[in-house]
């Protein structure tokens, strides 16, 4: 066993017991129903503990130290500080509009919309920060520094531009936000660094983008031509069979085109991520990623979302099997960071049903 330096490549691995995980998911479902949903916070913590402890880096398991109680407290805080004021705001603006004070009511409604738009990225950032603070590897924890609002306004801005550009700025959005997060992430006292630019992604991206736009246009055209006359009274039912067949054929094609880009993006983003003298490398092939995504969608949809943790576990296994850290580094030189950790859980993510993905 090499103690101080650990060779020229460091690897992740997983040994997730899918049977145990499924049992845990089902147990959590039953208990959540019996407790009117209260149990879900503890269930979530149990699932994370299982996933973390079956994910290994350099043969050492990760630990999840968060508790259901923290998640529950975080949820209560969000309920009081965010959800209830939002409900109040919405009632106030509606009442004002109905009573004829339209300008004030509209201003309140606009304010409410602005908050609603900004909340998902805020939730994602805070959840990430919380999860890092409750993660240990060899007792050392990662941390996310930087400001929640800085991430939120960047995210909202990039998505706004994305809409204006018909999706063409997607690689810029991805590289910038990925860079924002990783350049503010540390493990112990060691920072991560990311210098991924968007330009190298564009050749692949434009091919996928064109393919998807083409599929959408052709799909709409086919559905339009085969439907009964839209102007007639009975047009309430378009040709459902045709739409179903077109979707069945085109959705996987669109997913394939998209996956080709996502695989390239993953290789690019990870290839430009470095840490403590190591550079990440990911060997992700389109076809493998496509199969992963397809099976994950099937697992999730066929179980009405109940088995989604299995899909998460498969994604973790997939990435861990393909991720390597190449370089000369010394993990023993990494010390615990003294940054303070949040004290309550990620209530906002629960309240807005967003997830920390990709």
């Amino acid at each position, binding site marked *: 066993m090499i103690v101080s330096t650990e060779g020229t490549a460091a690897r992740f691995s997983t040994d997730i017991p899918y049977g145990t995980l499924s049992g845990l998911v089902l147990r959590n479902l039953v208990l959540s*129903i*019996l407790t*009117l949903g209260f149990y879900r916070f503890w269930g979530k913590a149990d699932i994370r503990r299982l996933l973390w402890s*079956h994910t290994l880096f350099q043969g*050492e398991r990760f630990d999840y130290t968060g508790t259901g109680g923290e998640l529950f407290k975080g949820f209560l805080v969000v309920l009081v500080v965010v959800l209830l004021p939002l409900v109040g705001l919405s009632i106030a603006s509606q009442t004002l509009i109905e009573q004829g004070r339209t300008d004030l009511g509209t201003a309140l409604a606009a304010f409410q919309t602005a908050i609603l738009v900004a909340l998902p990225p805020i939730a994602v950032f805070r959840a990430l920060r919380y999860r890092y603070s409750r993660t240990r590897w060899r007792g050392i924890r990662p941390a996310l520094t930087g400001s929640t609002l800085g991430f939120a306004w960047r995210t909202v801005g990039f998505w706004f531009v994305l809409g204006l550009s018909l999706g063409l700025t997607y690689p810029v959005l991805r590289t910038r936000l990925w860079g924002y997060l990783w350049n503010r992430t540390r493990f112990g006292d060691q920072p991560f660094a990311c210098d991924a630019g968007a330009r190298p992604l564009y050749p692949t991206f434009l091919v996928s983008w064109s393919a998807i736009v083409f599929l959408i246009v052709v799909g709409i055209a086919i559905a339009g031509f085969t439907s009964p006359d839209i102007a007639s009274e009975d047009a309430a039912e378009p040709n459902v069979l045709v739409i179903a067949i077109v979707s069945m054929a085109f959705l996987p094609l669109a997913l394939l085109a998209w996956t080709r880009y996502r695989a390239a993006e993953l290789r690019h983003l990870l290839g430009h991520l470095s840490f403590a003298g190591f550079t990440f490398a990911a060997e992700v092939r389109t076809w493998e990623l496509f199969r992963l995504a397809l099976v994950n969608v099937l697992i999730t949809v066929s179980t009405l979302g109940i088995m989604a943790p299995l899909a998460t576990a498969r994604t973790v296994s997939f990435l861990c099997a393909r991720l390597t850290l190449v370089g000369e580094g010394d993990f*023993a030189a990494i010390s615990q960071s003294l940054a303070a950790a949040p004290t309550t859980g990620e209530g906002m993510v629960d*309240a807005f049903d967003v997830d920390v993905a990709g």
Partner: protein
Amino acid sequence: MAVAGAGFFSDGRTAARVPVTVQVGPDALDILANDGASLARWPLASLLAVDMVGGGAELRLSTRDAPDARLTVCDAEVAAVLVRRLPALKRGRWRRRRLLGWMAAAVAISGVFVILLPLASARLAYMVPFAWEEAWGRYVLAGLPGAVEECQGAAGRGALDRLLRRLGTASGMETNFRVHVLPLAPVNAAALPGGHIVVLRGAIDDAATPEELAGVLAHEVAHVARRHVTRRMVREAGVELLSRVVGGTGSAGGVGRGLLDLSYDRDDEREADAAALGILSAANIGGDGLATFLSRQDGIPRPLSFLSSHPVTPDRLAILAGPHPGGPAMSAEDWADVKAICPR
């Protein structure tokens, strides 16, 4: 007797991982480097279980004094000894107790909600200013399908308004009731907040006599008079809040919610039926029409029919059982105008 076995140790200050020998004594655990030097000594009472993998093949520990330190015991025998001495390492018993506690709490909270929510919503409903209700009603109406094409046949509207005024006066409410006929085929009627009553063309087509329609309208007027609609909106806000709190955005909360709503509706319907009979009698209108109308709907499996929101149950028909004699609801000419209120 001391037991010893192999393991790995990280001290929680750096990410170094050292192969060690773990030696379990009577009341402390010694962590020894391979050259025999003592790296740490953890009192057994301070041990925290991090994790157990492979049924004890890998026991991972920490200590209260240094919660970030990690000791992985890779020796099944040592792990077994530790678990035997410290049953707390094998979480379980207190978790089961915690679970029972949560279930009891959930049952208690939902019990309180089931009992208190109807009472609270009734109280709160009477506190809502009528002007708000009126605005609410208009808001809901505008969102209904067919609202833009409301039937405006002047003669028919006049007749309906006169009938409604009689029923309104009889109900003892000072509300300005307004009826809206929407050109939709389902047989249905509904009371919106603020005295707005919606009748679908299907219900007018289906009514055989003006007394049947009067029965339906009286039923809806009773809903308004008893503030059922506002009460229901307050209740829905409460249920929404509860299911947000306990169910989050997940689906588990939805099941109980549907049950709550349904049971309240049945009570409201019975109450409105009984009150409708009183209103019809006070307005001197024959009260058998509602029962006739309802029993005709029974057993017709039509989606979106009167049944879905006003389920006909034997006890409802029992409440309505007549005879309830009285005068006509309107003249034959008025009835013809009402029947023709929607343009064909």
